[in-house]
């Protein structure tokens, strides 16, 4: 049945992937169903909540609003690719470390999208102001934290990790 569909190639978390899917299938569903990357969540299906945020070619996007054909050839990064060498006792991204220390994650359902938005923010604004953090995360709804712990987490990650260190993507716990 999938032979009907074109093969779409993407680089997901640094790996070449090819999947056959209807071109109007949402990138979100391809990630979750075809590639079993269930870290990316669906909260609303209409681009409002940001739970499905991933990075595509260096920009933050809502994967629920992307027909997978438009991701042809793209580089995609999901939460699973934030700290690529994760093992028990392994490494976390500085943002993940900061969220853990500052209480940036509560129920955790918005967390993967929030982390991707924060990672995007730190790339464009390595030393963000609080106003820049608020704007950078405004598309990611969190209902648990009231955002204060998240702001603190992002600030902590931006000041702890100098930008070159952040670009290395992860550091030892």
């Amino acid at each position, binding site marked *: 049945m999938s032979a009907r569909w074109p093969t779409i190639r993407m680089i997901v978390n640094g790996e070449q992937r090819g999947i056959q899917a*209807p071109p*109007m299938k949402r990138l979100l569903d391809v990630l979750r169903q075809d590639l079993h990357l269930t870290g990316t969540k669906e909260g609303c*299906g209409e681009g*409002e909540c940001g739970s499905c945020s991933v990075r595509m070619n260096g920009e*933050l996007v809502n994967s629920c609003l992307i027909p997978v054909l*438009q991701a042809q050839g793209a580089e995609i990064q999901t939460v699973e690719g934030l700290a690529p060498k994760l093992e028990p006792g392994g490494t976390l991204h500085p943002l993940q470390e900061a969220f853990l220390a500052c209480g940036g994650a509560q129920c955790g359902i918005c967390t993967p999208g929030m982390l991707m938005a924060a990672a995007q923010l730190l790339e464009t604004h390595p030393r963000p102001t609080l106003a820049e953090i*608020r704007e950078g995360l*405004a*598309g990611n709804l969190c209902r648990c934290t009231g955002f204060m712990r998240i702001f603190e987490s992002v600030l902590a990650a931006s000041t702890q990790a100098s930008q070159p260190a952040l670009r290395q993507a992860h550091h030892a716990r």
Partner: protein
Amino acid sequence: MRGNPETHELVAPGSLAAVLHLMAVEPGAWTPIAGGTELMVAHAAGRLNAPKLVSLWGVPELRFVHATDESIVVGAGATFADLRRSALITEELPLLAKAASWIGSIANQSRATLGGNLVNGSPAADSSPALLVYDAEIEIISARDSRRIPYHKFHTGYKRNALAVDELLYAVHLPRRFGHHRQYLRKVGTRRAMAISKVALGATAFIETGVIREIRLGAASLAAFPTRLHRTEDALLNKPITNDLIQTGRNAILTEALPIDDIRSTAEYRRRVAANLLEEFLFELLGVEKRP
């Protein structure tokens, strides 16, 4: 996910010529989709009435911002993130840069395009008031032709526009002659971010010795489509700015605005706030910072 992706065709020919060819061969059969921030929402809700879609995403000829002597020209495929990153826009067209920052969130701005915002034609479209008061022109293209029309004639009814079935919105031309105008733009949304506008008002005015020599007012959510407020402009044109004129302007906009009640606000609220926004702009012209 209520829509079934298997029931929609989507192609990505990759070049403008190929897209236009497709639309010429089967006029009306193909629905263009750019960043998907509108159509994919409809898709998820099971309301996407478009069996065949053609992707404009990644068509390089549509995604540009450049300047001529007279105009800044923005390709329909430029995203709002592109506009915010463009020094041309932020320096010369601050109202458009401001409007770009209102679009949803960072993730929406990286996908939503200027062309998509206009063709979708929401009465609440964030970019429209700025384009109206900058006196933008729309360049329309098809396999057979290309033409230009004033933006304020682009919308022809609720979610209707001047495009023929084989035509695409190609670019928006913004004249570079508003540098000495007083400029104003304010959106009143449901919240500070991720907000659909309840009412928005843009204004540009050229003032000479206390007299309004030129004025444009552009509004969102005061009619079935984004619109210039010509009658209110007329009531203010060539008049000295006084407290009385401010009241005249209020009365004019309260009469001209024809908003509706909907799920996000009320007609009454929209009319009153529109009048307050106009008043705020006119007080700025008068040199008074805030209305007491």
